[in-house]
Every structure is written in structure tokens, then in C-alpha cells.
């Protein structure tokens, strides 16, 4: 069924009787060409591109709970491609271009809103680093602008310019960046994949990987064994657990990132804003809530909840940057489990196990990467070679010294 304004009107006039389930609820087949573990954004996007772009129809996505229940459903919805390093920028710019055509591609309104992002800087050193980054973006074909303090004030007069501990000296802007309705991204990809024949199997937890003499033959699940020629793992925070089933240790730790939303407010923030002197970033949803976050809690955890010190740290940053939000109320706080890698950059690669492929290490940047991650993982699964924009995301880069470390924080995941 095709979605459109006409369809909405037609259904409204006929009592909404014609709406069908957005995805089927199939039982697993005994064997698939490709099984994707993880019905989150990346897994569903992979299924969409595998089926639609790479023509693979015998594909299943197995999800232990309900689809979209992982980080795609608990992030702060920011979409951008403002990266600095060669290994990253082409990938994220590819992703942003896919975002720009997403609704038409999947025929589902994910409310991609290119309201722009501004990364504020407060020292000359930060300005120099952002200048290097902005130049790298432009040299990679992305858009970037450098604003001075006055220009920032003109666009964001409510920021703290008069009483700031760390005065705003300017900001790096990407106008094409923005936000998207996170749940809708999962549902849109799921709907499209389903329409292209992909089996989306919910409440089906992978309990083991069947590996015989170095080859992966399929997955053991709560719904029994499901055979597969290829198995792709896209489980974000649970990467360590699932790949552990194949006896692999990863350059990844699982950490919790908290996110927050305020009560609904009339529009106040025109774009996404990140504070350069504290842990705080914010945007305003179309529904009116201020959606904001900051740093990860910093300790290994698989619990989707955090603790007070980080809540306070984030709100301190918020108040320091925009004291007008003092009387806006924080409505809800939650957490997502992040697959924090050793250099802050992701991995999309084969593994030593034949037929087993890995997609992870997204840290807290997975949402914006969803389309490209799905596209490149689909490419790898279909062609057994990395997509040109994802060639740097190798599993062995830490052994060879080819880290992609935007922050320069080194081999300590909770610093990225």
C-alpha cells in the first residue's frame, strides 16, 4: 500500500478501515541467504538496501524484542556529516545525502528536517580545530560555514553572551544537518524491507551462532535454529555479547548514554546546538520538546539507565549556555547502550569466521549513520567487499595503527 495525502483523506472518509499492518509477522523460514541480527535502525536499513538496491529477497531480520526498540528509538535524532578525518567524512556525507532522499526512497515520512547544526567554540584552539574540520568537510563536498561571535548572536540571541564563564567565540555550522523522527526511521525501513520480501521476525532472540570449522551456518534463536549463508550482526550495544558467541573479543566497550526531553514548548530553538565548553547538545522536536543530552556516564554497562551526576552535568552545561531554559521542565530521562569503540569510529567488516559479518562500534553517533551504515553493510554482505566510502572501517586497523580518532582520545572508549 502506497502512503500519500490522498490515501490519508480516502481512509479518513471510509473510517480508516483500509490501513494494513506496516509489516507482516512471519514465522522464520528454515534458511535464508542473509540473516541480519538486530531489528534496530542499522539492521532494518541493511535489510532495506539489501532487498531494494542489491536485489536480495531471501533475507530475514531477527530482533529479540520489538523493532526499533534499541538506540534508534532512544537517541536525540541528530543528523549531520560534520566530520574531519578522511576515513569518516565521505561516509557521513554519503549518509546525509541518503537522508535527504529517505522519505521518497522508503515512502514513509521520517520528518527529516534540515534545520542545521552549530558547534560552538570558546577558545582559539577549538576554532583552529573546527577550521580544520570545516575545511575537510568542504574538501569532501559537504557544506560548512564558520561564524564569528556576532554572527552566532544574530542567529541565537538567547545564548549566554553576557555572563558566560567560557565566552562563545563562534561556531561551525552545517546548514544541511538537522533532525529526523527517530522511530519513523525504523518503521519506514521496516515497512520498505517488508514490502520487498524481507522477513522481520520480532521477539526472536539469538542465543547462539552455529559455527562449524570456521564457517557460520546460521543462528540459534528462541524460535529455534535458522540457517543462513551469511549472518550480519548489527546489534550496537550488544555487539560484545553476540560476537562473544563466536568467541571474538572486540575493540569495543558498552556504555550508557542518557538522553532527556523537556515538556512541550512553543518553538524556541531554530537548529541543533552543541556547547563547546561543557557536555550539552540540544534541539527542539516538532512536538515542542527540547531534546538534549551530553556525555556518557562513563562506566561499562548494559543497563539502559544512568545516574544523577551526569544528569546534573548535562543540565549545568545547558544552563551555562542558555539560561532561558531554567524554568523549562525536564520531563523524562532514559538511557541507551552504546558500542563505544577504541577510536570513536565504527567497524563494518568481515570477521575471521567465514560467513559472519560485523557492523558496530557506532559509539553515540549511530543514528546519523543509519542510512550509510545500512547501505555499506548491505554492500559488504552482497559483494563481500567494502563499499568505497567505508573502506577505513576495518576490524584490524588497531593492529596496523590506522585508527580514525576524531577526538584524539586514544584507546579509552569512554573518552570518545
Amino acid at each position, binding site marked *: 500500500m502506497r*502512503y500519500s495525502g490522498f490515501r490519508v483523506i480516502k481512509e479518513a472518509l471510509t473510517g480508516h478501515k483500509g490501513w*494494513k499492518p506496516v509489516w507482516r509477522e512471519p514465522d522464520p523460514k528454515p534458511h535464508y541467504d542473509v540473516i541480519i541480527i538486530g531489528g534496530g535502525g542499522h539492521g532494518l536499513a541493511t535489510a532495506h538496501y539489501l532487498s531494494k538496491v542489491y536485489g536480495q529477497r531471501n533475507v530475514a531480520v531477527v530482533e529479540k524484542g520489538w523493532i526499533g526498540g534499541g538506540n534508534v528509538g532512544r537517541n536525540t535524532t541528530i543528523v549531520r556529516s560534520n566530520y574531519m578525518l578522511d576515513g569518516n567524512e565521505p561516509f557521513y556525507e554519503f549518509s546525509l545525502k541518503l537522508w535527504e532522499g529517505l522519505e521518497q526512497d522508503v515512502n514513509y515520512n521520517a520528518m527529516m528536517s534540515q534545520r542545521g547544526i552549530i558547534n560552538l567554540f570558546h577558545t582559539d584552539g577549538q576554532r583552529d580545530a573546527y*577550521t580544520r574540520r570545516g575545511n575537510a568537510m568542504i574538501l569532501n563536498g559537504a557544506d560548512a560555514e*564558520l561564524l564569528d561571535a556576532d554572527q552566532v548572536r544574530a542567529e541565537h540571541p538567547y545564548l549566554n553572551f553576557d555572563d558566560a*564563564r567560557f565566552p562563545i567565540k563562534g561556531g561551525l555550522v552545517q546548514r544541511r544537518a538537522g533532525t529526523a523522527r527517530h522511530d519513523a526511521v525504523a518503521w519506514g525501513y521496516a515497512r520498505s524491507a517488508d514490502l520487498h520480501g524481507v522477513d522481520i521476525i520480532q521477539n526472536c532472540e539469538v542465543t547462539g551462532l552455529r559455527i562449524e570449522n570456521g564457517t557460520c551456518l546460521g543462528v540459534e534463536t528462541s524460535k529455534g535454529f535458522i540457517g543462513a549463508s551469511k549472518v550480519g550482526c548489527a546489534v550496537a550495544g550488544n555487539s560484545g555479547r553476540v560476537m562473544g558467541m563466536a568467541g571474538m573479543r572486540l575493540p569495543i566497550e558498552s556504555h550508557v548514554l542518557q538522553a532527556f526531553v523537556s515538556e512541550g514548548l512553543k518553538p524556541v530553538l531554530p537548529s541543533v546546538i552543541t556547547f563547546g565548553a561543557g557536555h550539552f547538545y540540544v534541539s527542539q522536536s516538532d512536538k515542542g520538546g527540547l531534546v538534549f543530552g551530553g556525555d556518557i556516564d562513563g562506566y561499562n554497562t548494559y543497563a539502559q539507565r544512568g545516574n544523577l551526576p551526569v*544528569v546534573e552535568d*548535562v543540565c*549545568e552545561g545547558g*544552563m551555562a549556555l542558555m539560561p532561558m531554559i531554567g524554568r523549562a521542565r525536564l520531563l523524562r530521562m532514559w538511557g541507551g547502550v552504546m558500542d563505544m569503540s577504541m577510536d570513536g569510529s565504527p567497524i563494518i567488516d568481515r570477521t575471521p569466521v567465514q560467513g559472519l559479518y560485523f557492523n558496530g562500534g557506532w559509539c553515540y553517533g549511530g543514528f546519523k549513520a543509519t542510512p550509510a551504515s545500512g547501505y555499506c553493510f548491505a554492500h559488504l554482505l552482497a559483494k563481500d567487499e567494502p563499499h568505497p566510502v567505508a573502506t577505513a572501517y576495518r576490524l584490524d586497523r588497531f593492529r596496523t595503527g590506522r585508527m580514525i580518532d576524531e577526538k584524539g582520545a586514544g584507546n579509552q572508549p569512554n573518552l570518545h
Partner: protein
Amino acid sequence: MTQVNRLTGGQIDRDTTLKFYFDGRSFTAHPGDTLASALLANNVRLIGRSFKYHRPRGLLTAGSEEPNGMVELRAGARKEPNTRATTIEMYDGLIANSQNRWPSLRFDALAVNDLFSNFLSAGFYYKTFMWPAAFWEKLYEPIIRRAAGLGSLSMQADPDEYDKGFRHCDLLIIGAGPAGLMAALTAGRAGADVILADEDFTLGGRLNSETFSVGDHSAPDWTAQTVAELLAMPNVRLMPRTTVIGAFDHGIYGAVERTGDHLPSLPAGKPRQILWRIYTQKALLCAGATERPIAFENNDRPGIMTASALRTYANRFAVTASPRVAIFTSNDDGHRTADDLHAKGVKIAAVVDVREDAPLSYDYEVLKGAQVINTRGRLGLSFVEVALPDGSTRTLDCGALGVSGGWNPNVHLTCHQRGRPVWNEALAAFVPGENLPVGMSVAGSANGVMSTHGALRSGAEAAAAALDLTTQPDLPEAEDAPMALKPFWYVQGCKRAWVDQQNDVTVKDVKLSYQEGFRSVEHLKRYTTLGMATDQGKTSNITGLAIMAEVAGKSIPETGTTIFRPPYTPVPIGAFAGRMTGKDFHPTRLTPSHHWAKERGAVFVEAGNWLRAQWFPLPGETHWRDSVDREVRQTRASVGVCDCTTLGKIDVQGTDAAEFLNRVYANGFAKLAVGKTRYGLMLREDGMVMDDGTAARLAEDHFVVTTTTANAVSVYRHMEFVRQCLFPDMDVQLISTTDGWAQYAVAGPNSRKLLQKIVDPEFDISNEAFPFMACGKITVCGGLRARLFRISFSGELAFEIAVPSRYGDALMRRLMTEGKEFDVTPYGTEALSVMRIEKGHPVGNELNGTTTALNLGLGKMVSKKKDSVGSVLSEREALTAPDVLKLVGLKPVNPEEKITAGGHLMNIDGPVDATHDQGYVTSAAYSPNLNSHIGLGLLKRGDARMGEKMRLVSPLTELNVEVEIVSAHFVDPEGERLRA
């Protein structure tokens, strides 16, 4: 005509009359009122508009679960959007305005949405607005955004202060209703440290809303007496107006105390609210229960509220929503409301009870087995249509309808650590499950014990159990009626029956969600927005769940439950920030010469938490470059002084001190002679440069290590890690002394001459006696202990001199007076930076965490003879490949042209794009000595490309310059000056 709806009795002070304003109209109220009760007293039923359809809305409840009755409280910079009228304690002069309406509350243009509601069904926006693509940004979204949100912010900085505090107790009791009060008595009398917190400004919970007696007293009297006894206990702390917002790990609770919200204005220095972090041994949740409505056609009109709310307004606030009231109930509790209202002289139009076997009354009519099927009334309720068992219908004339669908225990805090509640058939409600937060237990109606006597008993028992007490106080007699109800969620056949009133989620939306496959509870919530409004579904989640269960043909527990997240009720962001706002966001660190520098009119810059002098403008200098160029020239020509106290200083002592430094530094330290200083390069274990600095050997077993300002803390932490975790048996002791010493760089050809004037004569600091890299303890100005290091960052003959911080100010002034004859100048961080770039010294811009010693041209410093941190991984293939980046100097071919840090380097005639990127500029400055802009950069094979012309591009700043690759040592490459 004021307060027409006032009744007799209640807990309000009629002797005092308060004035307040709603939408510009002035009304009167009494102390003890909430804004909600005061509005009802004045016969104001229409208070707000719903989110999506802008339907007229009044009050649904009398508590913090309120979804409808929200206002913008106060005015100007103190405006608080989305404030629940039911929790606003009345004060004189209170100002409130309705929100989410235009042009006015009674005539709201967007109420037109209601006419099109059929097109605006759940999730409709996911299916449209996609064509043409560009229209989303330009047309559709702007319209949606304009309609979004409820109240509005003032856009001004919040003028109020907030505090944070920390309290500890044996037992935290959350909620001061019958269970909480009895628990506090039990624990308090036993001598335990107790904190009793309640969100209300009057302790007692439901007891304040009931007419029955507890022991020999009325419920409110028993409450007052109990509170008085608790107040007298030194070990019990009562915290009214305090909401416990969340249960966090290991018995830590967050609580927000509203210390100033009930005051017309705050006394100076007093906080509006305090965020308490409460550390508990045990916690007892006595949060009570929330009555749930029943969904039926047009059940959202102003005047329709929960039956218990009507009872609270009547008994506690002496107010009725209308002189004529009807009740719609599925249980006995609805009848209690009718009884209490009748007793207060309110006319009961009828009690509509869905049960065939409902109890009868002598005082009013009871319609058994009947259901409310519709309501009428434009901006408020005027008629209720009832379907009788025999199929006939009847219209009731009433201005208020009390609805009772049973009670939901307030289990929220039991779920904050992912605990799942369990279904209780008898109550048709979720009660706390097994895995509660550590140390938490639950009592009273929050635990499904619905009678007053049961609540008192379970409170006493739970407190005793939590503290292992053997004795409990005697329990007063109290109402002990069993919960008699028939599970009843919504009236069949209705078209538009509201489940989530604020977000306009109807029964139909829930069914559509199922129809489209959004069947897990989380999908339901996310697709329909059920329970995502400011009340977080306190009155709607379970009903929505029950409807979903019914259409799915499953039981409610099979269908699931949404998980509750903190905070229990919304909290101002300012309260979480406390005093860490504005200039107090971070502590400010001042150098010993700060006050002197301020007198000199220095311009300061933030360096981490430090404030450092950036430059010292003199009269006539209009541009910062004038000052900086002068400071550089004067220093290189004669002598300059710079406060470098901010550099981290770590005292390293012990018989293994030298060997310890040998392990943490990449270069060797074992053979450093006493009285000598050495530059040290510190690597991370991954082989990247972590920090650089100097280590001065003051004795065989004593070094003073300096770190960069930025890394002082992390380097110290790292050294402690190496000491404690890697080499636990080394005899080495570390301690930071950064703040203890005022340290000044005295640089320039005349620096020795200047110092000789203040260093006491017995110390020979001539080049022979005190050569380059010498260090030692000395005295100055007639006996003040000091330290002298002959090290140079500027590349000039230079020293760093340190004295105890309290004398730093005096020493700086002395250096300036004694230096007059040499035309001494103080210089700031800008001049410092220019001189270090002229010398090619790497700092933060170069030590960016991705550079190796090899990149920085310091590869030879990494000793291969020993195993120091980072040496192994620095050898990885990609880090030692022939084309790795190397630090180089950059000069524009045309000296007039600027060099921009952050620019990228391209081959002179090659293409300009990312794939042909050759490197980037890390630092740039204007060199007054070379009369040219200069820069440092990291360039592929840079060391082999000296003299090569390249293109420096910075499209971001529209710069494109031809540069020459030169040595990074622009000034005195042989280093003759610093050895002079």
C-alpha cells in the same frame, strides 16, 4: 460574585483573603487553596486547550497527575509554562494565564483541528507531507512546528537561584499519607534517622481529603497530631513540598524541594528549589494510588473529572465544581464521593454505576448497570446522557461529572531500575513486582493495600521490617472497606472517547495502532503518543493498555506494561544545574600575579579553568597585535616576564624516582645529574604523545616534573596509575604542588642581569655556574626560599623562577621595578605562543592526541633501549610508514599573506580536494621578528620537502595562499641564544 462554589469546612484559612489573576481577570482565594481549587471556587471550569485538537479543557484531577489544567504561571522572566494548576499553592498576587490558544481561551482558532480530527488520526503525518520533497521544509514542517508545544518560554535568563544538597538517612519515606505517616511514627519512635518527603504542601495525602475518622479523631486531626509528634523528634526530618523524582543506583534518591514556589517573591540569597541527593540505607515507597477515569464519548469536557478529585476539592478545599454533580463509577469509591458531596449540600443528579449489583443510597438516585454514553456543553459540561440497562437513555442535568474507574497504585519509582510491576486481578491494576531497587520496599495503596486501616498497618509493618524493629505503635481504628469494583475501561460503541486527554489520544487511535501492527506497548506509545504528555500517562497508560489487550484478545499482563522513567513529575532544568550557572559554571583559577595583571589592564583568556593574561595593552595600542608584537620584540631584545604558574607541577620523590620517570617518559632519565633539568616526552600506551614537559632533579631521590597546563590533572592520574597499578613495588611518591609555587618565566638577553638583582648574592647564576638546563634551590630578596630553573620556551636566554604563591604578587612587582632599567615587559599567552611558534615548539594544537613523536620530529627521543609506556605501539606499521605526517614550518611566499591554522596543504599544481590532501596547519602567528606570518603544520613526508612550494587552502575562511615549507625552527635554529 466571588467564590460561588465555596462549601463549608475544609483546610483553608477564611480569615485571610488572597487576590489572584487568571487571563487578566482578578479573583479571590484563601491560604490553603491551590490555583485549581481557587478557580473552581470562582466557577472557572475552562482552563486550557488540548495539544492536538485544541479541545476546551478543565481540571481532571486534584493532584500532580493532572493532564489538562495547565497554565503559564507568573510573568516576565519568571514565566513558567505548563504548570499544573492542581499543584500551584496559592499566594497573594498570583498571576496565571492559559496557554496553547489563540486568540483567546474561549475562542481558539486552532480548535478547527477538531473538525478535521478524522484526518489527523494517529500517525497520519508519517504517511503524507512527502510530496513534493522540498515542501516538507518550506511548508508542512513550519506549520506543524508553529502548532507544536503547549506553553512558551520567556526567552529570558531564569533570574532565580537553585541549590543542590546532600542528605543521608536510615530510612527515606516517600509520601506522607496514612502509610507514610505511620511508617515515620514507627521508625521515628525507634530512634532511626528518618526523612519523610511529600510532594504536597500539607502532609497527610488522602487523609486530608476524607471525612472518616482515624482513631478518635477526624482524619485531618489525626494527621495534624501525628505530624506534630514527628516534628518534635530530632531524628525525623519532614520535607513537605518535596518530590522524590527518581530511584538511582545503590539507594540514592533524587528529590526536589520547592522552597520558594509558594512565595510571591524570593528573599535575597534564597533558592527557588533545592535538588537533594538523598543517600539511604532503606527506602519505603508510600506514594499512594491514582484514580483512573473511564473513557466514553466526549469524556473530556471541562467539569468532567475523577470522582476522588471532586471529593478532595469538597473536603479539603471546601469547593465544588458545580452545584449539581453526577457520578459515573465502576466501584464503591464513586459512591463515597457522592456521599461526601451530598453531606456538603451538593445536589447529586445521580450515581451511574456500571454494576448491576451496585449499592443503593437513601440520599440520591443510583442508576445500576448504566453507562454514560455522551456529554454535552460548549465550553463546559451541562448534560450527561446515560444508557440504562433496559436500553432506554436518560439525560442528567449537571455541571460536573465525577468518574471513577478504580485506582492505580503509584508504582513509578519501583520501575526506575527496570523493575516490572505485576498485575493484580482483584484491583484490576498493576502493583509493585519482585525486583525493586536495592533497599526499597512499598506500603499502603502504592502496594495495593487500598483501605485506610490497611495502609496504616502496612506502613507500620514495612518500616519495622526495613529496620528490623521488634515493636510497632498501636494502630488507630480506621475505615477498612474492601475494594469492590468491576473492571471497566471504556464504553463500547463510542466514536471519540479520550484516553490520553492532553495528547488527544482516543480509543479509536489505540485500535488503529493495533490494526497497523503497532502492537507492542512501546509501539503503541510511540505511534499514538499515548502517555508521552507532561503527565507521562499517569491517568491514561493502563487504560490504553487495557484497550490494546482487548483488541488483541490477550490479557493485560500478556500485553505488557510501559516502563516508568524518572523524574516522577517534571523538574525545572535549573534545579538540576544548581549554582553551576553563568560565571559559576566552573571554578575559576587565578594565578598569583592576577591582581597585579588586572591593575596593569591585562586582557585575560580562559585556559581550562585558569584565567591567564593574554596580553598587556599600553596606552596608544589600539589593536591586540600592537601589544603582542611589542611584547615579543621587547622580550627578544631585552627581557620579558610571563606568569607560567599554570603549568602542572608534580613532586616525584623516592629511591626509584629516576627509574619511575624512565618508565613514564619515552626518553631516558636514569642518568640525569642532580641540579639538571631535562625535557621529557610522555606517550600514551597507544604510542601517541600524551604530554611534554620538564623534569628537574633537585636531589638523587627528588624530581620536580612540569606538565602542560591542560594536562596537569590527567598526567598526574596517569602517573599514579603507573605507580599503583603497573609498578606497585617501586619506592616512589607523587604529589601535586601546582598551586604552591608562583612560577615566572624571565626571558630575554637581559634576563640574567635582571635576576641577579633579586637573587641573593650567595647564589651564582652566571652562565658558568648555572648553565642552560641547570636548576636549584635559592633564596631571593633577602632570604625568601625559591627555585630557579634555566629552561627556555621562548628560545631566548631564559629562566623560570618560583617562590611560594603568597609572595608571587610581590615578586612580580619587584621584577617590574628592578627591570625598569632593562625596559622589562610582562608578556601574555599570545606573545608566548608567537615565540614558541618561532621556535617550533609543539603545544596543544600539535599534541592533539593523534600525533606520534615521529610526527613531531621527536622520533629519536623514543628510547629503544628501555620499555617505557607507549614505546611498543608507537612502532605500528601505519605509524612508521614513510609518508607519515611530519612537523614543518610554513612561510607565505608573499609575507603579507596570512596563514590560517586549520587550513589544508595541497600540492602547488595538484587538484584541491580531500583525496589529494597533503596535511594541515596546526598553528599560525605573525612573527614580528621575521616580519611575516608563519605557521606550523603536519605534512606528509614533511621533513623531506624543505623548500617546496605548496598551496595552503582554507575554503571555510576563503583563503588560498602559496606557502614555502621550511624548518619549524624559525628563530635561532642552532639555539645559541638560550645557551648565552
